[in-house]
């Protein structure tokens, strides 16, 4: 994998980026309603002023061109709903919080998921398999708005070990990241179990046994690398989703993250925020998938990119 491959990947991003901007721009505007339609009836004069301020009185095409011009300067425009705030400001404030929450949640997810799945794969069809996998089903089925409040109830209110909301101290981070990571841990544990069980049925594992390797050496040296490839593939989209899609967790724990803006903007027809968060999501997905592909090639020598 050389510099050529990286350039190629970046080159492919250009037309997709153009497409995303165009599609989101027109789709959100063709959707019924507008940023000011849910307001209590404002007088026609005020509405006209508002529209003039945000250039909504211009033809759609010139608005589109204007958006591109601003975008090239790195300006995502002003928010339609949050007065006196730009989309750039909103992202600059919320992204670091979402990034921290997301990475913490994913760390939990990998730690818990890989150990539970590994345990299940080592002793398939025993209690070490059934118990983690039962929890995993639970984790996949239980929505965040159930897991979050239950954790708050147990660790926040009954045991009083951890704070129930906020985003100041490290203790504040524990419950939200666990809540957010729970479902991902559940899914990763199943991927780990499946991947490891498949690898352990391979003939090279028998070769390793025939050479006299111990079970732990077989797991660490011969199984994990291939067995965790499905998890690695999953982590790319998971990371992007976990950063932007934490609305429920953010709401439960009152965290000023991105997820809230992502959803609210769509409901409010806050055109510029919808555009900004969508583009951010696209960029995150792109970067995460790119990283995953690179890691994949490092783990599996048979994968070659040209």
């Amino acid at each position, binding site marked *: 994998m050389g510099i050529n491959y990286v350039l190629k990947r970046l080159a492919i991003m250009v037309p997709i980026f153009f497409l995303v901007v165009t599609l989101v721009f027109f789709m959100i505007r063709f959707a019924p309603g507008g940023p000011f339609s849910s307001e209590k009836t404002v007088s026609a004069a005020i509405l006209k002023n508002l529209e003039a301020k945000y250039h909504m009185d211009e033809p759609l095409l010139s608005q589109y061109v204007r958006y591109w011009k601003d975008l090239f300067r790195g300006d995502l425009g002003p928010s339609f709903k949050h007065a006196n705030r730009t989309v750039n400001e909103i992202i600059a404030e919320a992204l670091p919080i979402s990034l921290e929450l997301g990475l913490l949640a994913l760390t939990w997810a990998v730690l818990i998921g890989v150990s539970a799945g590994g345990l299940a794969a080592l002793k398939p069809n025993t209690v070490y398999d059934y118990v983690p996998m039962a929890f995993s089903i639970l984790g996949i089925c239980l929505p965040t708005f159930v897991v979050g409040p239950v954790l708050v109830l147990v660790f926040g209110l009954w045991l009083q070990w951890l704070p129930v909301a906020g985003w100041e101290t490290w203790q504040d981070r524990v419950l939200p990241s666990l809540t957010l990571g729970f479902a991902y841990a559940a899914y990763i544990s199943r991927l780990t179990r499946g991947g490891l069980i498949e690898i352990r049925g391979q003939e*090279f594992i028998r*070769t390793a046994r*025939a050479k006299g390797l111990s079970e732990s050496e077989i797991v660490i*040296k011969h199984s994990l*690398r291939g067995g965790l490839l499905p998890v690695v593939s999953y982590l790319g989209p998971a990371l992007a989703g976990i950063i932007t899609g934490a609305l429920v967790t953010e709401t439960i724990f009152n965290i000023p993250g991105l997820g809230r803006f992502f959803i609210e903007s769509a409901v409010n027809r806050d055109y510029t925020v919808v555009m900004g968060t969508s583009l951010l999501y696209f960029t995150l997905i792109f970067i995460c998938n790119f990283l995953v592909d690179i890691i994949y090639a490092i783990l599996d*020598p048979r994968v070659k990119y040209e």
Partner: protein
Amino acid sequence: MKPLLSIQDYKAHFYTRRGIVKAVNGITYDVHPGQTLAIVGESGSGKSVSQLSYLGLLPTPPLKIMGGQVLFDGNDLLQMSEDQLRKIRGDKISMIFQEPMTSLNPYLKIGSQMIEPLVIHRKKTKKEAWKLATQALERVGLSRADQAMESYPHEFSGGMRQRVMIAMALTTDPKLLIADEPTTALDVTVQAQILELLKSIQQENKMAMILITHDLGVVAGSADEVVVMYAGRVFETGSVDDIFYRSQHPYTRALLRSTPRLDKLEKELPVIQGNPPDLISVSEGCPFYERCSYQKEICKREFPRESSLGAKHKWFCHVEKIS
């Protein structure tokens, strides 16, 4: 001569949902130092299971060892703990397998797989082991062994990978090499090279070899002694000449007749009628009974006792004389 490996009335069964599969159903034979014993039989005759099972290479359950003895250097492998067995595997007893494509780990460099037996059993440092493993690759005829150590399995052809497997199995100078269909997955020309290589190494190292195969051509070219297996039982054992020229068992004869030969071109190759029995419902009698053209009433009821001619040639059949 004292045998290196002595298998006595060894039984290993699989406990499956459908019932008990009597994969190895009381087998007895010896392997002597420096000699090659070929185990021949159709698919499902228990040739591989009879070897893999006593080395602890098959999952238990479903496999269960039901009895007998497997004496290696006088010690019963069946009585050993997993830890004791592990110390023998890859050290005194090495194995090579049928599929060189899948028997090497695709994620690891050849070198880091090659050094494992030396590091585990001989307590070599990685550096020493790397050097020894490189030499081992040279011995099996791999050019540029240095580079090969740094390569990954997918960069090699099947024949090359089998050479790597052989070199790896031999790094610890094993007393016994078990080769499970080592040439089945290879081209015919490569087959010959690999067999030649095994033979020369064996003579050099005075190592015993168990060659599991269904290819009688391979047997004729490389074995000293032969065990003919069918449905988990041994039907006939003897020297290569005993089996090829003086075979006494109807099954061995049928097997020989159904092998294509270059010197006797026939229009149609004879086949053995019928199919091997389902090992779940196998009876007390001779498992070949239904397909045998010499079948007698007694064959159905009891497995025949051993008949022998000389010290080595033994067979199990109720029929006195076959034509």
